[in-house]
C-alpha cells in the first residue's frame, strides 16, 4: 500500500474552485440575466407610457365607466388582450391594456431561452463537455433550471421596481403591492414556459422541434384563453396557463388562487425535465424519432432548392399562422363595430395607434388587425434573416461556397426565399381576413384587404434588408439588428399612442411611415420609398458580404 502510494507522483497544488456542482447554473444565469433585464426595462417603459396615456385619455371615473361599457363587449379586443375586468378603474384599464401582451412576450423569451440552454447547447455539442464535469445529467438539468429561474427573478425584480415607480405617479396611483404582483404575474408566465420549454427539450431530439412544440403550446394556450374570453366557455380559462394568469388579476381584485396551478405546472414540468434528463441518452429525446430513412432527393439540387426543402415546414406553419390571424381578427369586425363605434375614447385610441382619422370604424378596427398581422410577418422576417447568419456561423454555408456557388447567388437565393414567404404571408393574411370578414362590412372589398396585405409586407421586407446589411457589416449582430429595428419601431408606435413623443423620435420608427391599411388607404409613395431604401440596403449588405471574410460563431 505504502509502496503504491510512494510510486504515485506528488500532484502539484491545485486551485480549489468555487462550487463546481453549481457551475452550470451560474453559467446559464450569467448568460441570460442581461436579456431578462432588457425585457424588464421594456416592460417598465411600456407600462409607464400606457399608464400615463390612460390617465390622460380617461381623466376621471366617468370617462372610464363610459369606455368600460363599450370596450367590455368587443370580442376582437378581448381575444387579443383578454376579457376586461374592472375597467371602471384606471388600474383595471391598465391591466387590461398591458398584462396579456407582456405575459405573452415574456413567455416567448422564456421558451426560447429554455430550449436554447436545454437542447441548443446539446445540439451544438457543448453540453457533453459540461456533463463530463462534477455533475450528472439530472444535476445539470437542475442547474439549468436554476440559472433560468434566477434570471426570471432578475426580470421580476427589475420590472417590480419600475412598476412600483409607475404606480407612485400621482395620476396613476397604483398600490405598490399590486405593482409587485403584476411583475410576479409576468415572472410566473416566464417560469411556466421555461419549464414547458425544458420538458419539450427532453422529449424531442432537436432544438427546432422542442421550440416549435413549446411555441405550439403557447399558441394553443393563447387560443384557448381567447376562446374563453369571447365565448360562453369561460371554463377554458381554467385549463390554460395564460388563462390562470389572466384570472390572477394583479392590479384589481387579485385572485391568488391562480398562483397555485401555475406553480404546480412549473414544479411538474421541472420535475419531469429532471427525471427524463437522467433517463435518456445524450443527443436523443424521450420520444423516439426515426434516425434513418430512404433518401428523398427532391429539392436537393441547388442551394436555393435545398433552402426551400430545409425551411418548408416552418414556412408553411408561419403562412398558416398569418392566414389564421387575419381570419380570426376579421371575424370579429362587426362585433367590434357595434360595441365601439359610439365611443369617443375608443376612437381616440384607434386614431393614436392606426391614425384612422374619421374613417369608418370597421376599417379602423381592421387597421389594428393588420398591424398585428404586420408585426407577425416582421417577426418571421427577423427570425429568417437570423437563420441566414446561422448557416454561415455554423459552417454549413461553407458546403456551398467551397463549390461553384457564388456568395451573391447563395445570399440572393436565401433573401428571395424570405421575400417570397413575406409576400405570400401578406396575401394569405389578406385572404384570411376576407374569409373571416365574410361580408360583415359591405364597404370593405377584397381589393381593399389585398392592398392592406401588400402594405403589411413592406416593413417586413425592410426588416429583411436591415438584417442583410447587418449580415454584411456586423454579422454576429444580424438578428439583434433585425429585432432592434422591429422592437424600436413597435415601441415608438405604442408610446406614441399613449404619450406625446417628439416627431423626430417618431420619425425613427419604421412603422411611423406605414399607413395601417385599411384604416386609411395605403400610402404607396411612402411604401415605395421604404422599399427603395430596403433594396439599397440589401445591395449594400450583399456587396459587403461578398467582400468580407466568412465568420464562425
Amino acid at each position, binding site marked *: 500500500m505504502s509502496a503504491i502510494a510512494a510510486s504515485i507522483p506528488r500532484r502539484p497544488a491545485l486551485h480549489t474552485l468555487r462550487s463546481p456542482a453549481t457551475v452550470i447554473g451560474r453559467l446559464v444565469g450569467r448568460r441570460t440575466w442581461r436579456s431578462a433585464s432588457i425585457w424588464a426595462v421594456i416592460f417598465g417603459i411600456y407600462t409607464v407610457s400606457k399608464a400615463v396615456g390612460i390617465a390622460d385619455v380617461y381623466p376621471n371615473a366617468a370617462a372610464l365607466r363610459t369606455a368600460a361599457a363599450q370596450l367590455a363587449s368587443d370580442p376582437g379586443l378581448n381575444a387579443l388582450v383578454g376579457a376586461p375586468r374592472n375597467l371602471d378603474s384606471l388600474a383595471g384599464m391598465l391591466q387590461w391594456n398591458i398584462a396579456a401582451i407582456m405575459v405573452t412576450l415574456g413567455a416567448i423569451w422564456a421558451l426560447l431561452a429554455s430550449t436554447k440552454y436545454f437542447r441548443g447547447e446539446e*445540439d451544438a455539442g457543448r453540453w457533453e463537455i459540461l456533463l463530463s464535469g462534477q455533475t450528472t445529467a439530472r444535476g445539470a438539468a437542475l442547474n439549468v433550471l436554476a440559472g433560468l429561474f434566477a434570471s426570471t427573478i432578475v426580470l421580476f425584480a427589475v420590472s417590480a421596481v419600475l412598476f412600483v415607480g409607475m404606480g407612485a405617479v400621482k395620476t396613476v396611483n397604483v398600490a405598490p403591492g399590486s405593482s409587485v404582483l403584476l411583475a410576479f404575474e409576468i415572472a410566473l408566465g416566464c417560469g411556466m414556459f421555461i419549464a414547458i420549454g425544458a420538458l419539450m427539450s427532453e422529449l424531442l*431530439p*432537436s432544438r427546432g422541434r422542442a421550440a416549435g412544440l413549446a411555441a405550439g403550446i403557447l399558441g394553443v394556450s393563447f387560443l384557448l384563453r381567447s376562446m374563453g374570453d369571447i365565448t360562453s366557455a369561460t371554463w377554458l380559462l381554467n385549463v390554460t396557463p395564460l388563462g390562470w394568469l389572466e384570472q390572477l388579476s394583479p392590479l384589481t381584485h387579485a385572485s391568488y388562487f391562480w398562483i397555485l396551478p401555475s406553480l404546480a405546472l412549473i414544479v411538474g414540468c421541472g420535475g419531469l425535465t429532471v427525471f427524463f434528463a437522467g433517463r435518456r441518452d445524450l*443527443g436523443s429525446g424521450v420520444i423516439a424519432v*426515426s*434516425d*434513418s*430513412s*430512404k*433518401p*428523398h*432527393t427532391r429539392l*436537393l*439540387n*441547388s*442551394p436555393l432548392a*435545398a433552402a426551400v426543402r*430545409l425551411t418548408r415546414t416552418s414556412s408553411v406553419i408561419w403562412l398558416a399562422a398569418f392566414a389564421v390571424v387575419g381570419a380570426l381578427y376579421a371575424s370579429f369586425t362587426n362585433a367590434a363595430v357595434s360595441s365601439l363605434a359610439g365611443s369617443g375614447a375608443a376612437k381616440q385610441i384607434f386614431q393614436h395607434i392606426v391614425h384612422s382619422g374619421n374613417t369608418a370604424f370597421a376599417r379602423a378596427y381592421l387597421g389594428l388587425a393588420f398591424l398585428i398581422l404586420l408585426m407577425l410577418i416582421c417577426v418571421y422576417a427577423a427570425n429568417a434573416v437570423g437563420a441566414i447568419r446561422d448557416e454561415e456561423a*455554423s*459552417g*454549413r454555408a*461553407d*458546403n*456551398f*461556397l*467551397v*463549390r*461553384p*456557388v*457564388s*456568395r451573391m447567388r447563395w445570399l440572393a437565393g436565401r433573401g428571395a426565399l424570405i421575400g417570397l414567404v413575406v409576400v405570400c404571408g401578406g396575401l394569405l393574411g389578406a385572404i384570411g381576413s376576407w374569409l373571416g370578414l365574410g361580408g360583415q362590412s359591405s364597404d370593405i372589398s377584397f381589393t381593399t384587404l389585398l392592398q392592406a396585405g401588400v402594405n403589411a409586407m413592406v416593413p417586413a421586407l425592410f426588416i429583411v434588408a436591415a438584417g442583410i446589411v447587418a449580415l454584411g457589416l456586423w454579422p454576429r449582430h444580424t438578428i439583434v439588428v433585425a429585432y432592434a429595428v422591429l422592437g424600436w419601431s413597435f415601441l415608438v408606435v405604442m408610446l406614441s399612442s399613449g404619450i406625446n413623443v417628439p416627431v423626430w423620435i417618431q420619425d425613427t420608427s419604421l412603422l411611423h411611415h406605414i399607413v395601417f391599411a385599411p384604416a386609411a388607404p395605403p400610402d404607396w409613395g411612402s411604401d415605395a420609398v421604404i422599399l427603395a431604401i430596403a433594396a439599397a440596403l440589401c445591395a449594400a449588405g450583399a456587396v459587403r458580404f461578398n*467582400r*468580407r*471574410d*466568412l465568420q464562425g460563431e
Partner: protein
Amino acid sequence: MTSAPVLHTERLTKYYRSVVGLDSLDLDVHQGEVVGYLGPNGAGKTTTIRAILGLIKPTSGSAELFGINTQTHTVESHKRVAYIPGEATFWPGLTGMETLHLLGRVHGSVDLAFRDELIKRFDFDSSRKVRTYSKGNRQKINLIAALATRADLLIMDEPTSGLDPIMEQAFRHSVVEAKGRGQTIFLSSHILEELESLCDRIGILRAGKLVELGTLAEMRHLSALTVEATFEGQPPSLDLVAGVSDVKVEGSHVTCNVRGAIDPVLRVIADHHPITFLSRQPSLEELFLSLYGESGHVPPANPQ
C-alpha cells in the same frame, strides 16, 4: 515540365487586425503532385486554405487555381476543385445519402459508381440522419463527397480528423489512388506519418510563414544524422568530436546526432571496434521538432 501550376500563390498575406495569420506565402503546386502542408495549431494552415478558396479575403497578395484568380473569379476557380475541411457541419435533418446527393449536385459532377464504392470503402451507413453521426462518420461525408467528384485538385485540411486507424488507411489508399489518376492533392495535416508516407513535397509553416518547402530528401539537411553504436565495454567519449551533439550513453550503447561531415565520428567509433553500428536519416517528426523544438512551440527567433 514547366507547365502552369495548378495552385499558385503570390505573396499571399492575411492579417487579423494586427495579428499575422499568413505572411507573404509564395507557393506553387503542380499537376499530379501531393504536397503536404505542416505546422502546429495556429501556424496558418487553415488560413492559407480559406484564403486560397476565397472564403476569407487576403490582406494582400493573390491566389490562383488553374490560373484563375480565386478572389475575383471564385466560382470559376472552384469548378475543378474539391475541398475536405477538418470540421464537418451539415444539416441534421438530412440523411447521409441526401447530403451526398446535395453536395454532388452543387459541385456539378460526380462519379456515382465511385461514390458507391467509396461508401463501401469507408463503411458508411448513408441511410441515417446526419444528427446521429459521430464526428468520424460526419467526416466520411466530406471525404466521400470530395473524392467522388474526381476533381483535378483536392484540397484537404486535416482530412482524417475523427477517423479511426482503419479508415485512415482507407483514406491513404484513396489518396494514392487519386494521385495515380493524375489528380493533384494539397494536404494540410499535423499527422507526420501521414504526410511522410503520402507527400512528394512538404511545406512547413511557422507563425504564418512558410519556412521550408521541398521533398523530404531535400529537407534532411535541417536535422542531424542519428548515429547509434554498441561496444563490448565502455563507449568512447564522443562529446568533443566535431559536429556531434546530444550524446547519450546507456551502458555499452551510445546514441548521438551528427551535423556536417560524418568522418570524424566514424573514425573514433571504428578505432574502438563497435559490435553494432547504425546511422539513419531524420524522420519528418525529427525534422519538424528540429524546427519547432521538442515542445512543439516556436523556438526563440534565430539571431541570424
